[in-house]
């Protein structure tokens, strides 16, 4: 039964990966990337049970943490063009979202 779950997870990962590479817009890619991370966490856990030695769950937990932080960081970067301080104090820099369309990010 863990084999069935592993196969389902593997097929799902491949499908989500296809969407990640084919996604027309940036947000499709970010969504697929986040979903792929969730699949990977579950895949690591199920693979440990399939081997009979579930010792990789720490790695799965760490992967879940990094996945969430990475998704938020990517979204913040494409919104504000920086990952650090985004307090609206600089007057010359414009972070208007309309520029995303000009750059062709929206697909």
């Amino acid at each position, binding site marked *: *039964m*863990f084999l*069935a*779950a592993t196969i*389902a*997870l593997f*097929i*799902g*990962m491949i*499908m*989500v990966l*296809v*969407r990640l590479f084919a996604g027309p*817009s940036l*947000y*499709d890619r*970010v*969504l*697929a990337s*986040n*979903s792929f991370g*969730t*699949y990977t*966490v*579950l895949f690591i*856990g*199920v693979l440990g*049970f399939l081997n009979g030695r*579930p010792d990789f*769950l*720490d790695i*799965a*937990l760490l992967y*879940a*943490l990094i*996945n*969430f932080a990475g*998704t*938020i960081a990517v*979204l913040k970067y*494409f*919104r504000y063009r920086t990952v650090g301080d985004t307090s609206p104090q600089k007057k010359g820099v414009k972070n208007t*979202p*309309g520029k*995303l*369309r000009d750059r062709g*990010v*929206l697909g």
Partner: protein
Amino acid sequence: MNGFDLLIDLLSWALILAGSAFLLIGAIGTLRFPDFWSRLHAVSVTDSAGMILLVLGMILQAGLTLVTVKLVLIGVFLFVTGPTATHAVANAALVSGFLPEGLSRPALPKRKAVRKKSPAKKTKATTKTRTRTASKTRKGGTG
């Protein structure tokens, strides 16, 4: 194997199979849905239903060990962060002006123009044109 163990086993297999089915459904939806806004739904199915069912099945398989604690941690964390990340993606897409097809409504309400209080007249003018004419007449009167 007594009856209780068999019951736990059956329950855990059922949960794992249901979780796998939900994960496959979510993946098919992520791949096949036509729009970004509809793909959000498929990803949410993966993040909530499939993940919870699979982790619950694994918890039932593990029994009361340290593995269960780790699985509970993973489950709680994914349960909190999955919908949060999906919401963040949707919010970022909406803020950037990425609208569903056929919907031409502006994503964000237009920022209200900052009205400056005129020092001469304290009463609020109801419309923009009236303020404009009022300021004009006041200018004409002073000049």
